[in-house]
């Protein structure tokens, strides 16, 4: 009942704000349904989550995980809570993307942020640049068992900004290939053990997708078109050519238009020329088409593994193929960060490190959702290596490529949405690859020209 009322009030107040309803009508409607104004206000209040920081031994943790990830995170939090009954863990889950980073930034700017929070590795740099994060103390970390040798060197290096450690990686989440085992078997793409044979080079990949298309009668592969996935696919292929978008400081444009156009042309060959991949589909559509066997492959992040296990789709997973010169797959990493405190409470800080350490050591639970554990003792454990299909692609972790740093890049950034937007027309057969690259370049130039106060 309460949530219904809450929704109703939300809806009405939304109407008032958008001007579709006058304030008088709002009051009349709420009165008509028997809600007094004070009750309405109380309901509105109740929808905010209180995150008061640190009385006694509390620990406030913010994250952005929904769906299967969210359920696993809660499972791990509960395990932490029962192992550490003296620490009162308050976990707050916020909406992924802009809403999350907006709130983390403002809380840190206001001086009363959560004790510990999740950030994408690619967004950590932007937060650190604005002085919104506290660095980790390496000695304190060592005392809870978090040391450099427990992580891949490249990932550990990424977690630094200006020579200081700002993030502790929980995982790496690369762009991968899901494949339907029944379809791929009929198409002759599986080896004697039932695993996907290695597909290498643009021609071999196109041929494989054509033979899969003959089996399904619909598509060889699917990937989301109306969303950021075109960027993930583009950046994977573009990085396989060894090219960069920005200089390491993120200030200079290094995009190689010839290579970029070659990559986008290849992607357009998939959806337009050869029609082995679907046009026009959104994220849910791509998942539904693969789940129902209308496509032999799905190219996506590895986080949908539980979806297909639940649906009992006959599937497995493999690294995204090597199409050009050197192996690369686009990825990002979920990390723990310490939002900057106006004054650091030493108990809360110690609790935060305990928490991070516990989460890393128990990240096998996390790995079941598809993410490759960053903590090497877990990633190298026999139990993780036996976890299929999740461990099939764990080997790509040393060769992943993160979005090049810039103040407008990273997961959920303007760069990702604008890049994907610029490529969509070509992928839907409504423009040429050259036009797509031109539009993308114009956007990058415009953003780089903006003068920032940090």
């Amino acid at each position, binding site marked *: 009942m309460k949530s219904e009322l809450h929704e109703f009030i939300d809806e009405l107040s939304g109407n008032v704000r958008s*001007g579709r309803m006058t304030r008088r009508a709002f009051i009349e409607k709420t009165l008509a349904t028997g809600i007094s104004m004070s009750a309405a206000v109380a309901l509105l209040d109740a929808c905010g989550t209180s995150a008061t920081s640190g009385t006694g031994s509390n620990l406030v943790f913010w994250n952005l995980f929904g769906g299967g990830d969210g359920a696993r995170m809660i499972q791990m939090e509960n395990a932490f809570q029962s192992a550490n009954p003296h620490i009162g863990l308050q976990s707050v889950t916020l909406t992924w993307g802009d809403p999350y980073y*907006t709130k983390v930034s*403002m809380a840190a700017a206001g001086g009363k942020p959560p004790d510990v929070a999740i950030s994408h590795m690619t967004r950590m740099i932007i937060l650190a640049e*604005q002085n919104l994060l506290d660095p980790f103390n390496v000695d304190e970390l060592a005392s809870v068992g978090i040391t450099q040798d427990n992580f891949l060197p490249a990932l550990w290096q990424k977690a630094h900004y200006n020579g200081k450690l700002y993030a502790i990686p929980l995982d790496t989440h690369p762009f991968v290939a899901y494949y339907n085992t029944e379809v791929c078997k009929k198409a002759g793409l599986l080896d004697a053990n039932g695993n996907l044979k290695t597909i290498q080079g643009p021609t071999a990949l196109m041929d494989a997708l054509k033979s899969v298309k003959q089996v399904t009668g619909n598509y060889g592969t699917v990937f989301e078109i109306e969303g*950021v996935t075109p960027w993930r696919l583009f950046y994977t292929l573009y990085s396989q050519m060894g090219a960069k978008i920005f200089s390491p400081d993120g200030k200079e444009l290094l995009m190689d238009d010839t290579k970029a156009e070659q990559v986008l042309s290849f992607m357009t060959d998939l959806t337009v020329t050869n029609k082995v991949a*679907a046009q026009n589909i*959104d994220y849910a559509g791509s998942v539904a088409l693969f789940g129902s066997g209308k496509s032999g492959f799905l190219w996506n992040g590895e986080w949908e593994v539980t979806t297909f296990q639940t649906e009992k789709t006959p599937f497995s997973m493999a690294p995204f193929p090597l199409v050009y010169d050197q192996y690369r797959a686009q990825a990002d990493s979920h990390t723990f960060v310490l939002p900057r405190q106006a004054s650091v409470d030493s108990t809360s800080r110690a609790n935060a490190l305990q928490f991070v350490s516990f989460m890393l050591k128990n990240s096998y639970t996390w790995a079941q959702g598809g993410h490759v554990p960053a903590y090497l003792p877990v990633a190298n454990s026999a139990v993780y290596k036996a976890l299929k299909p999740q461990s099939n692609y764990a080997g790509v972790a040393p060769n992943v490529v993160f979005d090049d740093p810039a103040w*407008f890049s990273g997961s959920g950034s303007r760069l990702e949405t604008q890049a994907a937007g610029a490529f969509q027309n070509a992928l839907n057969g409504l423009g040429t690859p050259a036009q797509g690259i031109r539009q993308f370049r114009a956007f990058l130039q415009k953003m780089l020209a903006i003068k920032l*106060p940090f």
Partner: protein
Amino acid sequence: MSDVTMQAARVETSAQARRGKDRRWRTNLAGLGFVLPFFIVYALFLIWPILLGLRMSFFNWTLSGLGSSDFLGLGNYQQLFSDSDFWQSLGVTLLFTVISTPLLIIVGFGLALLVNRAIPGQAFFRTVFFASYVLPVSVVVLIWSWLFQPGFGLIDGVLTDLHLPSVGWLSSPNIALISVIIVTVWWTVGYNFLLYLAGMQQISPEMNEAASLDGAGSWARIRWITIPLLNRTTTMILILQVIASLQLFQQAYLLMGSGDGPNNSTRSIVQYIYENGFTTFRVGFASAGSYILFVIILIVSIGQFSLLARQRRNA
């Protein structure tokens, strides 16, 4: 008012005057006391942010407060006016307003006409026409994004069965905004429908009866009785609708999966402001954009209100 009080004061003796002043003072104080709680909240959460926003629009202000002393003068406004994305998104909002407003008025009027007569199941149809308006935007978008899905969506499924070409409802740059308009009309027309229906029920049946006796057909009665008598309703709906349409954001944002639509074709001016303020954290620049939208809405509203005032005088 003050004239009257002054006249009254002149005929009063000085003692009466003192008592009267005293009473007025107390009445005023009580009045102020009633207004004050509201005014404090109003000042704190509306007037102050509006002024602060104006100040921000002249600085290189970021969400985290950095740059709050980096004065740019009109720099943010200059950058806005030279940004083709700003003009493009403003164009999207205006196009949306120009197409959706007449549609919402005509469809609302038409639906009200249909149920404003003794037909079986009248109450049922009234509920149906209004029902979608009660839905939260997230539910509306969820329903339509499945309907619009290519390949297996209901609409495309029907088209394919009829051997018609499938349409990129959400992916074609020429069609995506039309899809947003369809969703908006379906979602919000119930409100206009209700206002029109209420208006029609105020029209006394005698007029229609008299007109019928004089041989007026149903079209003539609508044209010469219903429409003119609902003029005031139409003007009010027009004002509310234009202001609401200029603020297009939530349904388009959700329908395009938090994106800008194919080739930015559904990015409204509000979304442009949102992205600058909350995705790239440039709240100073975003405030400048908000002020421009504010001025546009102000001009449109003044125009419409003067129209309304003229209508009143003529009535």
